[in-house]
């Protein structure tokens, strides 16, 4: 085999080993050095002093799932660009045309996603809200920002 080839990767294996040891070492060190005085309250899930209600592991919006799916598809597209870019000096204008075709064919999909509102995470359409007029107090001038309803990523629908 071309022995020089894999030799480049041996340092990565070594580094992975060193770094893993380091990470486990840090965990162990604090485990050994730190005190351990557990109590029921201390071990409870953090809820700002309020008793936890329900299970944290609940179901969430399908939106996260959609983003992950769309990510896979575009990731595949981006990956195709790398070998193309590496040999672009051989392909030249032909390569440019190829890629324009490729992207041109995927682009309608992107526009479709956009139009379907896949990238809109806010339920409320804030663009139609009137601008809040600045509130003036005697001597003080301050601008009250739009009180915008917190964008809830776990709300079900997408439009």
């Amino acid at each position, binding site marked *: 085999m071309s022995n020089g080839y894999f030799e480049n990767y041996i340092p990565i294996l070594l580094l992975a080993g060193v770094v893993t040891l380091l990470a486990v070492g840090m965990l162990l060190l*604090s485990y050994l050095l730190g005190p351990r005085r557990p109590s029921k309250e201390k*071990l409870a899930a953090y809820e700002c002093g309020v008793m936890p209600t329900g299970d944290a592991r609940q179901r969430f919006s399908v939106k996260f799932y959609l983003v992950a799916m769309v990510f896979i598809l575009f990731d595949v597209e981006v990956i195709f660009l790398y070998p193309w*870019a590496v040999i672009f000096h051989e392909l030249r204008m032909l390569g440019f045309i190829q890629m324009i075709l490729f992207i041109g064919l995927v682009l309608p999909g992107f526009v479709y996603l956009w139009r379907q509102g896949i990238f809109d995470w806010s339920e409320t359409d804030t663009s139609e809200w009137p601008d809040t007029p600045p509130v003036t107090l005697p001597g003080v001038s301050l601008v009250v920002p739009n009180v915008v309803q917190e964008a809830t990523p776990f709300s079900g629908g997408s439009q």
Partner: protein
Amino acid sequence: MDLPFLLYTLLKIVVVVFALLTAVAYTVWFERKVVAHMQSRWGPTRVGPYGLLQPLADVIKLITKEDITPSGVFRLVYLAAPCLAVITALLVFAVIPFGPRTEMGGIDIFQITDLDIGLLFILSVSSMGVYGIALAGWSSNSKYSLLGGLRSSAQMISYELAMGLSIVGVVLLTGSLSLRQVVDNQSGSWWGIIPHWNVIPQFIGFFCYFVSAIAETNRLPFDLPEAETELVAGYHTEYSSMRFAMFFLAEYTNMTAVSCVATVLYFGGWSGPVFGPEALQTVLPLLWFFLKVLAFLFVYVWIRGTLPRFRYDQLMAFGWKFLLPLALANMVLTSFVQAVRYGG
């Protein structure tokens, strides 16, 4: 492959990791100091001169704190998550060239290894970085953590696309994925004054890269996963002592890694004026590299000190509707210009 090779490599790795950990600890100090001065405060001053020993004190404090494992966590995953975060953060440095090829005993001392697919290696390692955060959020059995983890992973995968696309521009200019070749390709200058750095032809690409990299590292203004006002501390709410510190370490290591990659890809890596005696000539490139990375870290802190946090819907819209098309347009434009330059 022989024993000296292994030993030298191991030595190199230990030096790099040690230097990195120190640098990261001082990045925290640097950030606290700079942000403090931006807000007319002093920052850490008590421990040592200018608070310089503060990182050391923090490490000792964090290590001797109690490890709290809340009830109801998935213990194995809960413990593996911070390890995963640290490992993926540090692995990136395997391919970063800190200086020109300088051999000592047949081994390049300024880079751990020069891969032909260096850029893809960085992308693949950072794509694995999602798991540390997602699994931490999921295994903690806390609503804040779960929300933080989910938001963060959705954010990271969204911005990964823009990042991958913006780097293609550099690959088009270089024709190689090896980081060393990327730097070598940027040597020289235009008309003897303007350095031949990629940032000039690839300004849009650089902008896309840096913005998406800030989002990838979950820093302000994209730090929604740990938005204190709504999610307490996001995915690491339930982590304490050294386990929390490991996430912290991973975040700052990622910042440093992004700064290094940005320097290598867009700012000519170690290139800079080299003069003087031979010993100085060996050290100067390292110094230039270090200064450039420091400048990037300063920009990180500057942004943190200046911009408010995005809302989540704004963040997703910005990534998908603005950054991704922009990176794509930059790529198409670059390839067209290159095709014309190569002449059909």
